[in-house]
């Protein structure tokens, strides 16, 4: 039996250290409008351990540390019997460190390192059960797709470094503040590419649902609460470099609008609890981006934190359910209300937060997102008003759909008749309770805009009513089928591009083996032929030799005469 407490203790130590570091920073001035000083430009790539922790960074750090600690505790039960618990637990710690690096650092390279190390941790943890084919496939897909996105960040850093002559984030802010946002469109779109990959937004959204074969605590931690949300954070962090750029903001608004609605619809039609929650995550991440697009990055971060709490709760609860029933298929569930009471109550809070029901934190933060989009329609932000209006409409529709699928999932999981008895290990329920409390406690002090609140609550209630009306029935076929197939958006990424690439690669390989070698092989054959020809003259017949000399003399004379 592997001793598990050292890993929990290690995580706890890191988490406490993060807390001690981050909590005092919560009271600093706001994330934006901060004018840093003392930036030292460097030309050559240099890593520095400088950090720049602002209130929003502190929030995200605390979220990451807290969720990680809870997940680690939870995992002692959930993964306790796993043969590879040690590597699993260590990778979680490594992940936390990388996440903190991304959030806290002032150096773009450290940011990139943390960003990629998170990606690798995600890759390794998705593939934790590498005996299963879908784990391997999901892991590889996650790695390749996110790294494709990461190229955007890489090139963005190249451009930033060249434009502002520094790799310090603060330094770049100063530069952008002093000289205006140079190359804002390019940098913004490149960073957008990166976060679209990392946060699984359209069109790179499909890796996240496929990452679900990983251990559920990992899904809760990495693929819901922290890593995927880091995309939002990083985009916000670098916003001073392109925040005024209409193109970037419009692109972001389009991406987030399309993503939030599509993903919510996909979540509505899933027959698998975990996958539905994964789509829900994609949709909620789009909310955060919508807030940033509307010019309210701090609202986006608030929603990030709140979503981190309730989505971690939901996934961990999902883990308990899966632990109990042995599968994540909704058809196998139902009636768990009585057999898993703690899970039922905490997850109810979680679903309420997801659906945006007062007084959960989800309600408040989502309302602020809606409100900020509404503000953006006044045309005072870089986002064009028309786009903002469209985004607002989509966001409200998504509220409806979100409430509907949250209700549907809740019903299918917990209502109905109990089938058999299950157990909830205490080390799994405590984290749930802690997160449930957090989902309520974080609401304290949140502002409330009554108009928006009323409207959104109405829409959400409509969604809930819709779900209650449909019960477990599917949507009408023409709607259900394409949505269940996720509109075939995965097809290019899983089929066309890999197949095409492999096809081209086979051609290249064949050309490499048989094609390019033509010149050396041809040369060798030619050399062999000439060699035979020259040696064929050596018959030993003297008069042939003398003839060669005579003819040769004639030839060289020709050469001489022609040359003259």
């Amino acid at each position, binding site marked *: 039996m592997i001793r598990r407490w050292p890993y929990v203790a290690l995580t706890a130590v890191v988490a406490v250290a993060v807390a001690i570091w981050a909590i005092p920073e919560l009271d600093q001035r706001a994330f934006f409008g901060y004018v840093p000083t003392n930036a030292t430009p460097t030309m050559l790539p240099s890593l520095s351990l400088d950090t720049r922790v602002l209130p929003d960074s502190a929030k995200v750090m605390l979220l990451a540390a807290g969720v990680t600690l809870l997940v680690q505790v939870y995992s002692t039960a959930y993964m306790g019997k796993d043969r590879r618990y040690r590597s699993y637990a260590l990778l979680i710690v490594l992940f936390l460190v990388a996440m903190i690096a991304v959030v806290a650092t002032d150096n773009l390279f450290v940011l990139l390192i943390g960003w990629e190390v998170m990606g690798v941790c995600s890759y390794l943890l998705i593939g934790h059960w590498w005996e299963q084919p879908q784990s391997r496939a999901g892991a590889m897909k996650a790695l390749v797709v996110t790294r494709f996105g990461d190229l955007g960040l890489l090139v963005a850093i190249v451009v930033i470094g060249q434009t502002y002559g520094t790799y310090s984030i603060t330094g770049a802010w100063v530069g952008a503040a002093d000289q205006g946002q140079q190359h804002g469109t390019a940098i913004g779109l490149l960073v957008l590419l990166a976060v679209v990959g990392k946060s699984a937004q359209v069109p790179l959204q499909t890796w996240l649902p496929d990452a679900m074969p990983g251990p559920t605590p990992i899904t809760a931690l990495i693929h819901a609460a922290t890593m995927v949300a880091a995309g939002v954070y990083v985009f916000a962090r670098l916003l001073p470099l392109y925040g005024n750029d209409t193109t970037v903001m419009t692109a972001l608004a389009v991406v987030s609008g399309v993503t939030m609605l599509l993903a919510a619809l996909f979540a509505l039609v899933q027959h698998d609890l975990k996958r539905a929650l994964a789509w829900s995550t994609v949709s909620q991440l789009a909310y955060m981006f919508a807030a940033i697009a509307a010019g309210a990055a701090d609202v986006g971060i608030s929603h990030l934190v709140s979503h981190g709490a309730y989505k971690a709760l939901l996934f961990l609860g999902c883990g308990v359910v899966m632990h109990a029933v042995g599968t994540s298929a909704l058809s196998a569930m139902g009636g768990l209300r009585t057999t898993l009471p703690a899970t039922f109550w905490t997850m109810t809070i979680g679903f309420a937060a997801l659906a945006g029901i007062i007084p959960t934190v989800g309600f408040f933060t989502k309302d602020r997102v809606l409100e900020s989009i509404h503000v953006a329609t006044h045309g005072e932000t870089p986002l064009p008003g028309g786009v903002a209006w469209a985004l607002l409409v989509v966001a409200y529709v998504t509220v409806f759909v979100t409430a509907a699928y949250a209700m549907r999932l809740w019903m299918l999981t917990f209502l109905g008749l109990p089938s058999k008895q299950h157990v909830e290990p205490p080390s799994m329920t405590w984290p749930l309770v802690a997160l449930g409390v957090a989902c309520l406690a974080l609401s304290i002090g949140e502002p409330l805009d009554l108009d928006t609140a009323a409207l959104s609550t109405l829409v959400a209630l409509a969604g809930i009513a819709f779900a209650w009306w449909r019960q477990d029935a599917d949507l009408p076929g023409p709607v259900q089928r394409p949505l269940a197939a996720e509109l075939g958006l995965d097809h290019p990424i899983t089929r066309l591009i890999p197949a095409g690439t492999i096809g081209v690669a086979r051609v290249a390989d064949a050309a490499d083996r048989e094609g390019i070698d033509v010149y050396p092989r041809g040369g060798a054959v030619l050399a062999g032929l000439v*060699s035979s020809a020259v*040696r064929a003259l*050596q018959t*030993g017949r003297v008069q042939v030799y*003398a003839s*060669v000399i005579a003819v040769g003399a004639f030839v060289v004379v020709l*050469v*001489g005469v022609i*040359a*003259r």
Partner: protein
Amino acid sequence: MSIPIDWATAGPAVIVATSALVALMVDAFWPRRSWFASSLPLLAGLVGGFVELGRTGSVDDVSAALTFVILAGTVLVLVGATVMSDEDSMPPGELHLLLGSAASGALVMVAARDLVTLIVAIELLALPSIALIGLRQGDRRGIASSWTFFLTSVVSTAVTLMGVALLYGSTGTLTYAGLSRELVDPAVPDAVVAVAVVLTLVGLLFKLGAVPFHAWVPDTYRGASVVIAGFLASVSKAGALGALLVLLAIGLSPVDDVWVPVIAVVATASMTLGNLAALRERDGVGMLAWSSVAQAGFLVAPATAVLTAEGLSAPLQYLAVYALANLVGFTALAVVLRTRGSTSYDTLTGLARSEPWLGVPLAFVALTLAGFPPAVIGLVTKYVVLRPVVDDGLTWLAVVMAVNVMLGLAYYLRLVVVLVSRPADEPDGITSRPAAPTGLATAAVAVGTAALVVLSVLPGLLIDHLP
């Protein structure tokens, strides 16, 4: 009243020729057949040649350097020939006479400053060489080779003579100085001169074994005694190359537009075809024969720039190293032939393991000829011959040379590999082989290899001191 004789030019040749005659006399009148009794006079003559060279110098530095190479090469051949000293079929007096005569022919060739002398010198080198090849009594292969060399030689000589006659007809003079004066004259008919010049070069290119005048080389080298083949590959070539350089640099300098392309084409063909043919060779002597065809290309290529100082000296530096390496190689093979009865690669397999004093020098020679470290001197001389070619603007020729370095390595390396490989089956007892007087030859191999090694560390010893 005295006849003015330029002893600086004629001295070494006269001394060597005289000593060759003495060697014959000694052999004729010595009571018992004695190899060494007849070789010593020739050796003394060669040493005398060195002394004379040191005392008076030669016509110019180039001829002096060539004289040195020829004398030194002949000494090595003389020492190497001792491997045959117990063979009854090889008459020592005749051997030494012919060797000395041929050497003096080569000496005259490099000192010649008019075509009449050159023609005589060519024949003085050629006729004894023919006899040397067929000297071993009752050796049918030797006679066949001798016949091959004879016939090809006389044809090429006749062609050269035709060229000389035409040159004489168009210019009225046969001295190099006169030619260089007359050929500038616009009245001289262009086409005839072109034909004449090229035909004149044929004889020298033939001696060098350059393609397309190479056909005799493989057969003759294989048929002759290995040491004599070494003589043909080094001393004979030294004479021909020297004569070619001097003729081009002095006599034919006004018509370089004729011979530069000819030399370039011949060099290209020699290198390429020689190397390609050598690729399939599985015999030590045969490989060296084809390699000497290819090396002829490397020797003459820089002669395209012979009108520059570097183009004149580069072939000399290459020649010195090439001749030394070849002599070491042929001598070592001669020893192998005596002790093992063959020079095929099968026989040579594992030689560097079983008889390192022969195998390692052979490997080093192969690397020198290939121009590869650790035989740095080979590489440096490759560099040396590339320089004037590039400098002269014939970059394409330089690239051809460079590619031929690659082709050459392919077969030189094969020999090296053969030498160091483990033999398929253990040689069936070296004791059963006839005892042969190989001591001196082996010593010569050792000395020659040592020289190559020293030059590899300090190439300046050679490069800095040749003109």
